[in-house]
């Protein structure tokens, strides 16, 4: 079977727009949380978010007309531009090679869908925006990005809730391993918008902003945690057939060694089944990578500060890693980036490639004491020195989806 390597990454996030900037911010313990600027409503229980307040797609995409692209598409097209540059794919290479795009997103652009409906309902169907209509399909961002950058390979949108970004990378890796594609941009994106924010806020899942709340920020695995903050961003990785990457002399950031995914049909109603699905995804990824749990040197957790989700992940880690869990350093970057939904898994992969490069695993911001209500995880607020040959990334959704991916440091020659 063909091997799959990562030869570049493009990141647009509230903590920077390159893999180095993202890693520096995470290792510097910087939180992206700020009072909301994109929208506001006094009825919201949570008034903080990890928003890209200075996002200007024109900076990445030049003087093109960006009107046909909504916020999600702008995030994706910008990340794609950066990933193409980072991996050394210029106009000539793109003309020779049919590069594809596999995008993971939970909501696509819920904003555009809502705006289209709003205008049709308030002004009448005649006045609904044709341009918004074209962007109401969930594949719009991937399509617009391919049009803009001339990506002629497979164009897929994968939607598996908050695990979409990692699942997209897994799907793309499988396509390359099977010989169906040689070079694919893969990752995820999610925009911050009132419509999805309001849903999570009403569900009581976000960190309460009122002064009586013990903590207003997400602290994954901490005993005081009270929810998560929503974030936004996009991360795309260039995945290539390893032999092809070697031929063109590409710089390899990491190898995608194994992937696994699972679904819990109880959709979290049954705690045991939810934990079992998460554990199954991780075991499948390890089996796919032909590795024992003890070979994993660090874990990038999906934990985002949720009472329930963090506890389940801790149980799943204990189930899969057993005694090896006591020596497994765990980080949770959502303590600083927020829950970026469809972008989350891809952002975690980007951050982990940087940890592999410089041996620094970011701490979990704000962590004081891990919750005694679940099996212990080796987590710390401080950064740790790690020597990572193999790392595991977890990405779990709110709706039963779980994905895991094993990343390997490129072999030294």
């Amino acid at each position, binding site marked *: 079977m063909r091997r799959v390597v990562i030869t570049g990454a493009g990141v647009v996030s509230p903590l920077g727009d390159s893999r180095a900037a993202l890693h520096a911010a995470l290792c510097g313990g910087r939180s992206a949380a700020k009072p909301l600027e994109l929208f506001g409503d006094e009825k919201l229980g949570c008034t903080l978010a990890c928003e890209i307040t200075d996002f200007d797609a024109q900076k990445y995409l030049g003087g093109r007309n960006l*009107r*046909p692209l909504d916020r999600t598409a702008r995030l994706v097209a910008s990340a794609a531009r950066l990933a193409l540059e980072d991996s050394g794919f210029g106009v000539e290479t793109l003309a020779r090679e049919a590069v594809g795009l596999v995008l993971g997103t939970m909501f696509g652009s819920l904003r555009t869908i809502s705006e289209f409906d709003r205008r049709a309902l308030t*002004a009448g169907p005649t*006045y609904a925006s*044709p*341009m918004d209509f*074209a962007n109401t399909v969930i594949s719009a961002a991937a399509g617009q990005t391919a049009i803009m950058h001339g990506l002629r390979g497979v164009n897929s949108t994968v939607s598996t809730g908050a695990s979409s970004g990692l699942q997209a990378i897994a799907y793309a890796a499988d396509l390359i391993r099977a010989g169906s594609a040689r070079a694919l941009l893969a990752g995820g994106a999610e925009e911050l918008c009132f419509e999805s924010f309001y849903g999570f806020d009403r569900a009581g899942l976000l960190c309460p902003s009122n002064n009586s709340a013990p903590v207003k920020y997400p602290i994954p695995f901490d005993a005081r945690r009270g929810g998560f903050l929503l974030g936004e961003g996009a991360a795309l990785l260039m995945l290539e057939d390893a032999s092809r990457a070697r031929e063109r002399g590409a710089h390899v950031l990491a190898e995608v060694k194994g992937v696994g995914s699972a679904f819990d049909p109880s959709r979290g109603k049954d705690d045991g089944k939810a934990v079992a699905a998460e554990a199954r995804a991780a075991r499948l990824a390890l089996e796919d990578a032909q590795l024992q749990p003890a070979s994993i040197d660090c874990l990038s957790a999906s934990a985002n500060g949720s009472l329930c989700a963090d506890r389940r992940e801790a149980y799943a880690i204990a189930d899969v890693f057993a005694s090896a869990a006591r020596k497994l350093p765990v980080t949770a970057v959502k303590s600083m980036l927020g829950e970026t939904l469809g972008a989350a898994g891809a952002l975690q992969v980007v951050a982990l490639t940087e940890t592999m490069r410089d041996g620094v695993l970011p701490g979990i911001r704000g962590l004081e004491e891990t919750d005694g209500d679940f099996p212990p995880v080796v987590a710390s607020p401080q950064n740790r020195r790690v020597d990572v040959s193999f790392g595991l990334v977890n990405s779990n959704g709110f709706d039963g989806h779980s994905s895991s991916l094993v990343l390997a440091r490129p072999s030294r020659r």
Partner: protein
Amino acid sequence: MNAEEIRAAVKRAISTTANMETAQIGDDASYKDDLQLDSLTILEIAVGLEYEFQIKIPDEQLSEIRSVGDTVRLIQQHLA
């Protein structure tokens, strides 16, 4: 409303939708040849103008719009 005011509104709509300066848009510029707009953008401009002027242009007339001049004349007809 006179033709000049309508023309200014048409140019404003093109400017916002297609991201170009109004000064770059000729009084009788052709959407495809001069401004290089695609059909979706032209439709978006037309629907935006229908909304602004609170008129309803039949589909068969909409598909015949080729230029700024055409658009101004069509809006004038419907306002009359």
